[in-house]
């Protein structure tokens, strides 16, 4: 019987070594594998390259990992003004940033997962983010050449998972998770519920199990349970 489940996050991240590249799913708090990131922080690996939409906000998950000085490079589209831990270290020159437009980041990850060698996108042509990139005119329009982005490890967050690695997301959790699942050597998913194999209907499996190596059930990170401080939404 295939069984990709592991008992806790510590075990799930135990094999990560210094210098690893790690993709983190999530956009905002939705679909953020916060418990795996916290376990990685305790695990202690350093000199990490993080591939993620943002650079971590606040003092938890990626923000805290960056604050600990364990990240040497971030590949991201939007290090938000609220990414204070990143900002501080970036301005001191302690951390490298490769800034990639969000759609290009998505597509580069997808190219890695789909076995493509690279692609041409119009995004960024004629801007300062085109610096150093090869460009090409196709049918009269300028495109930039972009290469795939692979990772040693991928952290995902889903709503349900099974022992085969099948995952289902809720709401806007799927964001980067589905595509990142295809682009890592070792793919680890944090889920809120482990269901029996076949418990996710075949037409609702968002990430098929063959992309996933480990599944861990863990309660939602407390910071991902917070409601807005005052009436109304954030």
């Amino acid at each position, binding site marked *: 019987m295939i069984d990709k489940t592991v008992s806790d996050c510590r075990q799930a991240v135990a094999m990560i070594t210094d210098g690893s590249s790690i993709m983190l799913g999530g*956009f*905002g*708090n*939705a*679909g953020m594998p916060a418990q795996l990131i916290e376990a990685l922080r305790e695990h202690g690996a350093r000199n990490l390259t993080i591939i993620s939409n943002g650079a971590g906000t606040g003092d938890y998950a990626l923000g805290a990992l960056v604050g600990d000085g364990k990240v040497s490079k971030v590949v*991201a*589209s*939007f*290090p*938000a*003004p609220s*990414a204070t831990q*990143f*900002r501080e270290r*970036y*301005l001191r020159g302690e951390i490298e*940033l490769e*800034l*990639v*437009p*969000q*759609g*290009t980041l*998505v*597509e580069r990850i*997808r190219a890695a997962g789909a076995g493509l060698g690279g692609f041409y*996108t*119009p*995004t*960024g*042509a*004629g*801007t*300062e*983010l085109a610096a150093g990139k090869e460009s090409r005119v196709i049918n009269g329009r300028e495109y930039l050449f972009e290469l795939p982005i692979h990772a040693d490890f991928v952290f995902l967050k889903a*709503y349900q998972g099974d022992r085969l690695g099948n995952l289902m997301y*809720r*709401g*806007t*959790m*799927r*964001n*980067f*998770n*589905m*595509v990142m699942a295809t682009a890592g050597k070792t793919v680890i998913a944090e889920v809120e519920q482990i269901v029996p194999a076949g418990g996710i209907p075949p037409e609702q499996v*968002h990430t098929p199990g063959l992309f996933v190596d480990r599944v861990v059930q863990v309660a*939602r990170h407390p910071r*991902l*349970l917070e*409601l*807005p401080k005052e*009436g*109304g*939404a*954030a």
Partner: protein
Amino acid sequence: MMLTRDGIAWRIARDLHEGDYVNLGVGIPVLVSNYLDRTQEIFLHSENGILGVGPRPKRDEIDLDLISAGKGFCTLSTGAAIFDQPISFAMMRGGHLSHAILGAIEVAENGDFANWKVPGEAVPGVGGAMDLAVGTPNIYVAMSHVTNKGKPKIVKTCAAPLTARQCVKRIYTDLAIIDVTAQGLVLREVMPGNDPASVQAKTEANLIVAPDWREMDVPETATNGARLRN
């Protein structure tokens, strides 16, 4: 008279119609959602993976897994769809949305614009702005006509780092509505109390005054900060 930020959003909302698929950027653009005609079906796109963003939830309606691109909680409108990043950006880059309403630091007379990197800001962040800009047929810019220091933001050539070249179709400011055309910038509407000459005086680029230019038709509440209705 000048439009408030909400006033600009209100005016833009008047130009969106049934069947439009619209992405609203941060700042003034996101305010547009408050002024849409609720009798028309206009679908709002959120780049994190929603087509059909609904109003903000009441506190007891919040779904922790349902957020929009601004990272705040949201609801879904009737007939909404949820999807992942590759599909969301295929919609944006592939030209499937009808409109993107975006803020800007500067717009040039050829439709170039800059909105992602404030000059002097040491930590850059770009997000989905460049993808929207290259892909969406109708890029509408919403911004103040001049900076806090009175410097024109509609210029001959952008000084700030570009978001994309030659993509802006229309500019909505607190003073005017200006179309970007092959002939140049065409002044369409002017706020009451101003005229084409006074708008040109606050604009670095040359404005072509449309033969049928007119005063903008907005309620007083669009200019005085009182509560606007959609």
